[in-house]
């Protein structure tokens, strides 16, 4: 397979294993560009990429922008203020207007699940979901896969633990699809208030004790605890949460010796992950960020070349 027969990238759920492998292989071949003195190729010259971010984001937006620029695409960043008009009007009217300017790719982030899918029905441009509510964040999962592929050389049989607010996490969902499709064994852990119903039907094992989840793990993915969700009676205090779910050197001993620690960022030091671990030898958190560029270049390249449209 050399082309991605899809108009959009809305989630990992819709991808086949072959399509995932294509994106990863493409990312690996594009990564070499980043080591050059002039980090730019003319591949997407004349293409227009719109970064449409309805929800605040620094790193994902920046990553997509740099990725597009390294491929010579023209990029426009648009972050509509949610407060100026109602969100509903923003999405539909903005989508139609931007669609009428005939961009090639729209990268969209939105606080509500399903918004990218709705957008994709209204525009002919390729739509890349850069995170929608608690639904999916496919580019994050793909960069996670790339990071694991490089560190471990395989997916089959790996034990991957995802720990934190699974219910509210789009990263968790995309990672669950991604790693299970590639043959890894996925476990999720968090307090029951953060484990959504039926999660095991996605092919994972759910635990309420972090120790059970990370036992013999090859990969540990710690999720950011969103402090604002605290008001919804999900746990008593941040302090107590970290007592039971913070990844510390002491419990890390339960994992495999060559375990790698990942985090989609931004991290809350001392809440879900201790500083020693975040900055320690097992951490690949910054490599994830670098791989993010290569993966997003691959996605843009595969979709903007338009074979799926």
């Amino acid at each position, binding site marked *: 397979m050399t082309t991605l027969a899809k108009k959009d990238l809305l989630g990992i*759920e819709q991808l086949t294993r072959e399509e995932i492998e294509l994106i990863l292989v493409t990312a690996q071949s594009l990564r070499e560009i980043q080591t050059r003195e002039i980090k730019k190729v003319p591949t997407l010259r004349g293409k227009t990429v719109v970064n449409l971010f309805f929800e605040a984001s620094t790193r994902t937006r920046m990553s997509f922008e740099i990725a597009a620029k390294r491929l010579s695409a023209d990029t426009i960043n648009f972050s509509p203020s949610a407060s100026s008009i*109602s*969100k*509903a009007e923003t*999405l*539909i009217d903005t989508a139609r207007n931007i669609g009428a300017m005939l961009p090639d790719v729209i990268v969209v982030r*939105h606080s*509500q*699940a*399903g*918004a990218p*899918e*709705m957008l994709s029905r209204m525009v002919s441009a390729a739509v890349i979901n850069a995170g*929608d*509510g*608690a*639904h*999916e964040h496919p580019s994050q999962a793909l960069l996670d896969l790339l990071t694991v592929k490089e560190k471990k050389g395989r997916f089959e049989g790996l034990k991957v633990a995802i720990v934190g607010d699974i*219910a509210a996490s*789009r990263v968790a*969902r995309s990672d669950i699809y991604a790693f299970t499709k590639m043959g890894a064994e996925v476990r999720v852990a968090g307090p029951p208030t953060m484990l*959504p*119903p*039926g*999660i095991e*039907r*996605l092919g994972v094992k759910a635990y309420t004790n972090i120790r059970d989840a990370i036992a013999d793990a090859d990969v540990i993915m710690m999720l950011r605890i969103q402090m604002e969700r605290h008001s*919804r009676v999900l746990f008593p205090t941040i302090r107590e949460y970290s007592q039971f779910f913070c990844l510390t050197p002491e419990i890390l001993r339960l994992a495999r010796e060559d375990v790698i620690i990942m985090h989609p960022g931004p991290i809350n030091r001392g809440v879900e992950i201790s500083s020693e671990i975040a900055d320690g030898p097992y951490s690949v958190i910054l490599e994830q960020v670098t791989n993010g560029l290569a993966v997003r270049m691959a996605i843009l390249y595969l979709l903007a070349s338009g074979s799926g449209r």
Partner: protein
Amino acid sequence: MWIVNGRLIDPANKIDGDYDLRIENGRVAAVAPRGEGPREGERIDAAGKWIVPGLVDMHTHLREPGFEYKESIGTGTRAAASGGFTSVACMANTNPVNDSPAITEFILGKARKEGVVNVFPIGAVTKGLAGESLAEMGEMKVAGIVGVSDDGNTIMNAAVARRAFEYAGMFGLVVISHCEDRNLSEEGVMHEGFVSTRLGLPGVPAAAEEIMVSRDLHLAELTGARLHIAHLSTAGSVRLLREARDRGIDVTAEVSPHHLTLTDEAVSTYDTNAKMTPPLRPERDVQAVRDALVDGTIDAIATDHAPHSPVEKEVEFNAAPNGIIGLETALPLVLRLVHEGRLPLDTALRRLTAGPARILRIDKGHLSVGSDADVTIIDPDFELEVDPTRFYSKSRNTPFAGWKLRGRAVCTIVGGRTVFDLARGGIL
């Protein structure tokens, strides 16, 4: 006028056979064995069709006054007639709310002038649907309401609900309860389960409905009120209802055609036309409400016709308002269950006619000699593809667009007057 050559089905009078129907002065004048009607002259030939009592929808939102951009009494009653309904009970969540006799009178006045079917207003239980103080139920009863309901604004304060049940009982008014613990619902926008987990949408657990069904059953027992549970949707609610009925509590219930037909999988494309409250449930709940409809635990099928403009529905799933329209798809969807052998025809028609009429205590839903000549003629084999652009409703919010269904109303007669005749182009 005669309606001849059809199969007359009148569940209330236990009639199902080849009978002709004579209408005079707006009333049923005779039900006679086939062949007694005239061979020519003023007659409707219903060969191959069913002659049934005009359908009764006990749960409709006509949106007038206040939300005429969604629906009006004129358009809503036309949609009803086109769907075979000759009587509709309209909910109180208008603007202003129907919580005073003036609004009740306004609705009835409009219905007389612009409506094409019978309109029976439902009054609010509490002033402004705020759940705090009682609306003027007695005066509204005098003005013409047939029941009270705060519908989607479930009265969360049990003490207010208790007093409302007691007070409504004085006037013999049925209390129609939309059962939902709104604290437990939180910001949920669909049924909480595997599908909501997959889609990343906040869910409403079945327990949010069942807790309130349970509370209201207890309050009905405490107060002796007549309780009617609107759009019941879970297996747990069915279980509670059966248990309460076995103990002799005066309770009835309705189910909507969509809760009999769709599961929460319909939300999978984030189609806002699959968003309603109560939300679409998984298969086991759908099966449970079907069973309850067949065995009589559920007395009525009601549309919960809830028009919203495209502008309101073409938004992110979370932001979209709840509800779908149902008057023009209800009968074909119910007949689908009949054709599939899941629902006996007699039962289906009873739940659409005598069932709801009895709950509202209105003299409708049967074809007894001397009763109002509200008659619907159904072509059970009519093949149709649901096309919302051709609806009489002002709104288009249906998840059934494009569905191929069989059977529909072809002629609707209200008080002896034909208001809808498909052969003559529709609404007359």
